[in-house]
C-alpha cells in the first residue's frame, strides 16, 4: 500500500557487452531509462577515481549519444515484412528463454530466408504496381466509356490535340460563362461527385493558350500516355482480361511463398520474438551514451529488483561498473517515476487514481483510501444483494475473459460491497421483504440515512485532511501543511465548527459565549490569510510575500470566503450518498407498482426484469459517476497532487494468449 522505492541504476560497461546487458535488462523488464547524457551533464554520474576506473575516466572525455545501429533497424524491419509476407499471426510467436542465440545467427537466418523469396516478392510488387495502373486506367476509360471513338484515332490526329480532365462544378460553371472565348470544343462526358469530366478538342497551335486558361480553372488533367487500339469500351475489356492474367500470376507467386513459409515459419516466429526484444533493446540504447570503448546507461529500478539485476549480470560483473544511487543523491531535476504497490484487494483502484494523475514519488499513495472509500460510497448508494452479485459476475467476466483487469477488478469489488450493503439494507433485486435488514431499511429511516451520509462525509473529509498533512510534512511545506486551508489550521477550523454545531444541536445552546467562538474561528481564519508571511518568517526567508502585497491579501481574503463555502458544500455534498440509497429503493418501487397494475403474470415478470435492468444500467452508472465525483472533487482536491511520472520500464513480454497457454502448460 505504498509507492515502490526506486534507485538510480548507473551502468558503465564495454561496448562489446552492451547487447548482452540491454537484453537482460529488457527481459527483466524493470528499468525506466533516463537519458544518460543528461544524467552525466547534471554531474550525477560519478566514477570514483581509482586505477581500475582509469580507462573509463579518460574515456568520458569522448562521450557522445549512442547512435542506433542501422543494421539492427533494417533487420527488425525485414523480420516485420517477413511476418507480413507469410501472413503470420503476431500473437503466435514462439520464444524459448533458453534460445539465446547470438544476434548474428538469427540475423543470418533472416537474411537467408529473405534472399530465397526476394525475387518472388519483387515480381509480386511489380505485378501489383501494374494492377494498380490497370485499375486506374479502367477508371479513366470508364469516364469516357460513352465516347465511341477509337483511341488510336484520337491520339493520331494531325492538326488537333485533345485533353481529358476534371473540373470542379464551380469552375465548370465559370468555363461555361466564358465559353465564347475558349479556343476548344468542350464535351462533358461524365459527372462525378467531385466534378465534371470533359474532353476538349483543340487546334494544336492553340494548345498553350488553352492550357493557360485551364490552369486558372483548377483543371485536373487525366494523363493516359499509353497507346491502345479500339474504343474505350473495347479497351476496358482488354484491360480486364489483363487484370485476370495478373491475378493468376500473383496466385502462383503466392503459392511458392507459402511453400517457403511452411519450411521456415518456426524460425521466423522465433526470430520475430528476438527482433521485438531487439527493438526494446534499442529503446534502452537510444537513451545511452557511449565513447570509443564504453557505454553509459542510467535508469530507475525498483529497489526490490536490484538482486535480480545483479544475478543476471553476474557474468560481466568484473568488467562492468554497476552502481546505485538514492533519489536524494540524484538531484532535483530528475524525479523518480512512480510505481504503486497495493494489495490484491485494492490494486484495481490504482486505475482510478491514475486516471486523475499519477502520484508523485514523494506523495502518499492514495489508492488504499480511494479503494476503501469508493467501495463504501458505492455500496451505500447501491446496496443490493442480487444486483451486486451481477456486478461481481460482470467484473469477473471482464477481468478473466476480456482482459480488462482494472475495470473488471473495480466492478467486482464494487459488486461485493454492494452485496454487503444489500444484506445490511435487506434488499435483493429491489425486493425489500425477502430477507431481513441487518442494519437499516433506508426508506423507513430517511433522516437517519441522510444524516449518516453527512457523518460518513465528515469522516472521509477528516481522513483526507490527514493525508494532506502527511503530504505536506513529506514536502516540508509549512505554508500549506501547518497554515493552509487543507492543512492543520483548516482541519482545526473544520472540527471546531463541527463540534460547536453538534453541541448546539444537542443542547440547544452554544457551548461557549458567542464572542469567544468568533474569536477562535476568526483567529484560525486569520492564520490562513497570513500563511505566506508567517511561513516565510518561520523559515527565515525573505521576501515575506512572493507577489505584490496588495494582490496577495485581496486573493487570500476571497480565499477565506471560498474556504468556508467549500467546507460547507463539501460536507453537504455527501448527502447524495444517502439520497441515492433512497433513490435506489424508490426507483424499484416505481417498477414494482407498474408490475402490480399488470394482470398478466408474464407481463409482471417482464416489468420487474426490465426494472432491474434499468436500475443496474442507469442507476449503476450514475452512482459509479457520483462516487467518482466525490472522490475526485471533494476528496482529491484536498490532499492529492498527482503530478508524478508513471513508471514505464522497458520490457518485452510474450503476447497475452501465448503467455496464458505457456502458464497453463507449466
Amino acid at each position, binding site marked *: 500500500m505504498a509507492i515502490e522505492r526506486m534507485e538510480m541504476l548507473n551502468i558503465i560497461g564495454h561496448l562489446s557487452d552492451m547487447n548482452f546487458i540491454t537484453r537482460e535488462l529488457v527481459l527483466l523488464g524493470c528499468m525506466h531509462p533516463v537519458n544518460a547524457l543528461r544524467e552525466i551533464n547534471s554531474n550525477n554520474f560519478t566514477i570514483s577515481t581509482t586505477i581500475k576506473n582509469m580507462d573509463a575516466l579518460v574515456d568520458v572525455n569522448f562521450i557522445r549519444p549512442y547512435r542506433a545501429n542501422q543494421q539492427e533497424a533494417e533487420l527488425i524491419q525485414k523480420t516485420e515484412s517477413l511476418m507480413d509476407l507469410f501472413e503470420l499471426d503476431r500473437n503466435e510467436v514462439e520464444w524459448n528463454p533458453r534460445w539465446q542465440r547470438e544476434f548474428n545467427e538469427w540475423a543470418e537466418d533472416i537474411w537467408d530466408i529473405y534472399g530465397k523469396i526476394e525475387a518472388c516478392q519483387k515480381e509480386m510488387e511489380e505485378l501489383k504496381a501494374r494492377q494498380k495502373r490497370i485499375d486506374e486506367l479502367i477508371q479513366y476509360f470508364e469516364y469516357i466509356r460513352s465516347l465511341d471513338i477509337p483511341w488510336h484515332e484520337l491520339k493520331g490526329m494531325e492538326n488537333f490535340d485533345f485533353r481529358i480532365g476534371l473540373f470542379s462544378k464551380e469552375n465548370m460553371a*465559370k468555363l461555361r460563362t466564358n465559353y465564347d472565348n*475558349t479556343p476548344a470544343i468542350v464535351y462533358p462526358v461524365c459527372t462525378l461527385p467531385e466534378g465534371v469530366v470533359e474532353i476538349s478538342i483543340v487546334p494544336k497551335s492553340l494548345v498553350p493558350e488553352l492550357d493557360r*486558361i485551364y*490552369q*486558372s480553372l*483548377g483543371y*485536373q488533367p487525366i494523363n493516359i500516355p499509353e497507346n491502345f487500339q479500339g474504343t474505350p469500351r473495347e479497351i476496358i475489356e482488354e484491360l480486364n482480361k489483363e487484370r485476370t492474367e495478373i491475378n493468376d500470376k500473383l496466385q502462383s507467386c503466392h503459392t511458392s511463398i507459402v511453400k517457403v513459409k511452411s519450411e521456415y515459419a518456426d524460425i521466423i516466429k522465433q526470430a520475430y520474438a528476438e527482433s521485438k526484444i531487439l527493438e526494446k533493446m534499442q529503446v534502452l540504447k537510444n537513451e545511452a551514451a557511449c565513447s570509443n570503448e564504453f557505454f553509459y546507461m542510467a535508469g530507475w529500478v525498483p529497489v526490490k529488483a536490484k538482486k535480480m539485476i545483479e544475478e543476471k549480470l553476474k557474468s560481466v560483473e568484473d568488467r562492468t561498473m554497476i552502481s546505485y544511487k538514492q533519489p536524494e543523491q540524484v538531484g532535483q531535476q530528475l524525479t523518480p517515476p512512480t510505481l504503486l504497490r497495493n494489495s490484491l484487494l485494492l490494486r484495481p483502484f490504482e486505475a482510478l487514481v491514475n486516471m486523475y494523475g499519477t502520484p508523485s514519488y514523494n506523495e502518499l499513495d492514495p489508492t488504499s483510501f480511494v479503494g476503501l472509500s469508493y467501495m463504501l460510497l458505492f455500496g451505500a448508494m447501491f446496496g443490493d444483494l442480487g444486483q451486486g452479485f451481477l456486478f461481481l459476475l460482470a467484473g469477473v467476466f471482464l477481468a478473466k475473459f476480456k482482459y480488462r483487469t482494472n475495470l473488471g477488478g473495480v466492478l467486482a469489488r464494487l459488486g461485493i460491497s454492494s452485496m454487503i450493503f444489500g444484506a445490511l439494507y435487506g434488499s435483493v433485486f429491489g425486493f425489500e421483504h425477502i430477507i431481513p435488514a441487518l442494519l437499516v431499511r433506508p426508506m423507513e429511516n430517511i433522516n437517519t440515512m441522510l444524516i449518516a451520509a453527512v457523518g460518513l462525509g465528515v469522516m472521509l473529509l477528516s481522513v483526507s485532511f490527514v493525508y494532506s498533512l502527511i503530504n505536506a510534512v513529506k514536502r516540508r511545506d509549512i505554508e500549506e501543511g501547518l497554515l493552509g486551508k487543507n492543512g492543520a489550521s483548516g482541519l482545526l477550523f473544520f472540527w471546531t465548527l463541527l463540534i460547536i454545531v453538534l453541541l448546539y444541536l444537542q443542547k440547544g445552546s452554544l457551548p461557549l459565549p458567542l464572542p469567544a467562538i468568533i474569536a477562535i474561528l476568526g483567529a484560525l481564519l486569520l492564520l490562513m490569510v497570513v500563511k505566506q508571511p508567517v511561513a516565510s518568517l518561520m523559515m527565515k526567508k525573505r521576501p515575506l510575500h512572493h507577489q505584490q502585497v496588495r494582490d496577495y491579501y485581496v486573493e487570500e481574503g476571497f480565499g477565506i470566503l471560498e474556504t468556508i463555502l467549500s467546507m460547507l458544500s463539501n460536507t453537504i455534498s455527501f448527502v447524495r450518498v444517502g439520497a441515492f440509497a433512497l433513490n435506489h429503493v424508490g426507483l424499484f418501487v416505481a417498477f414494482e407498482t407498474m408490475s402490480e397494475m399488470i394482470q398478466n403474470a408474464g407481463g409482471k415478470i417482464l416489468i420487474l426484469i426490465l426494472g432491474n435492468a434499468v436500475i443496474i444500467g442507469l442507476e449503476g452508472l450514475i452512482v459509479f459517476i457520483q462516487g467518482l465525483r466525490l472522490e475526485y472533487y471533494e476528496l482529491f482536491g484536498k490532499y492529492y497532487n498527482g503530478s508524478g511520472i508513471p513508471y514505464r520500464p522497458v520490457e518485452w513480454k510474450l503476447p497475452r494468449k501465448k503467455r496464458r497457454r505457456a502458464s497453463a502448460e507449466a
Partner: protein
Amino acid sequence: MNNVVRYAAVNTKIRALEGQFLSREDCLALLEKDSVQGIVQYLRQTHYRDAFEGMDAANLHRGQIEVCLKRYAVDKLVRLKHYFRGTHARFLKVLFMRYEIEDLKLLIRAIETDPGYIYTSNPFVYIGRYGDLDYDKLIASKSFVELVDNLRASPYYSSLVPFAESGKQSNHFLVEMALDLFYINMFISHLELLTEGERQKIQDIYGMKADLLNIQWIYRGKKFYNLSPEVLLNYSINFGKRLNKAFIKDLCYSASVNEIEDKLKDGVYGFLFDHEKTKDIFMERRIFRYLYYRLRDYKGKSSMDMVQTIVFFDLLEFEIRDIITIIENIRYHNEDLEQIKRCLIRGL
C-alpha cells in the same frame, strides 16, 4: 433553440473582446513611438499583453511581432468556437481555414526556397496550434509533391493536386490562387448552414467585399501584369452584390485600364478612382477602410445572429493590420506622421 439563448453569450463575449480593441488614444500613442521595442512596450500595457507573454521584448524582431499578433488574434477567435454547436460550428470551422491556408502558403514557399525557415522561425499561426493538420508531418515534407501527398486526407488536397507534378517547380501564384479560391468557394457553399436571415446579411456585406476585391484584381491584373481576360475572369469571385457576372466579364474584356475606370466611375465604387495620383498606391487601403466602416455599421444593426461573430473576425484582422503598418513604418524610418495615418485602415 431560441436565437437569444443561442447568441446572448457569444455576443456578450464579442462585446467584451471589442472592448479590448485599441482606442483612438492608443493608436495615436503608438504613432508617437520611435522604436519597434517602444511599440511592444506600449502594447504590453494594453490587452495585447497576452500576445507577448513569455517573450523578450528587447529582442523581438519585426517578423516575430507580426507572428505574435496574428497568433493572438487566432487565439481570441478560436475561443469563440466553444459558443457554437451543430451547423453553426461547422460554418465557423470554414472561417478558420483561412488561417490554415495562410500557413500552408508560407510552407509551400518555404519548401522550395528555404526549407529550414519553418523550423527556425516557426511562423505558423494556426497549424500545429489548432486544427487537424499534422504539423510535424507537414513540415517534414521535402518537396511540394510530398507536401500535397501529406495533405491527402485534408480538404485542400483536391485544390493542390493539379499542381503536384513531380520534378516540376510549382507555380506559387497558381497554387496560392487555387487555395484562396478554394476558401472562397467553401465560404460560399457553407452559407447554406446558416439561417435565411444570416445568409442575406452575409450576402450583403461580403458581396460588397467580393465586388471590391474583383475590381482590384481586374484593375491590377490588367494594369501591372497584363493578364489575359480569360484568366482575370476565371479568378474573379462569383459572389458580387452590385456587380453581376455579365458586368465582371465586361470589365475583364475591357480594352484598357481607362475603360475599366470609366465603367466604374459613376457607380458606388467610384471612390476608388477619385484621386488620380494615389489611386494605385492606396487602392487596397481604400477598400479596407470602406469595408471597416461598413462592417462597423452592420454590427450595430445586427443583433442575435452569427453575423456579429463573422464580422468580428474581420474587425480584429483590420486592427492587427494597422498595428503591423505602424511597426513597418517605424522599421523603415518613415517619420511623416500624416502619411502613416493615411496608410491606416482606421481613420484617425
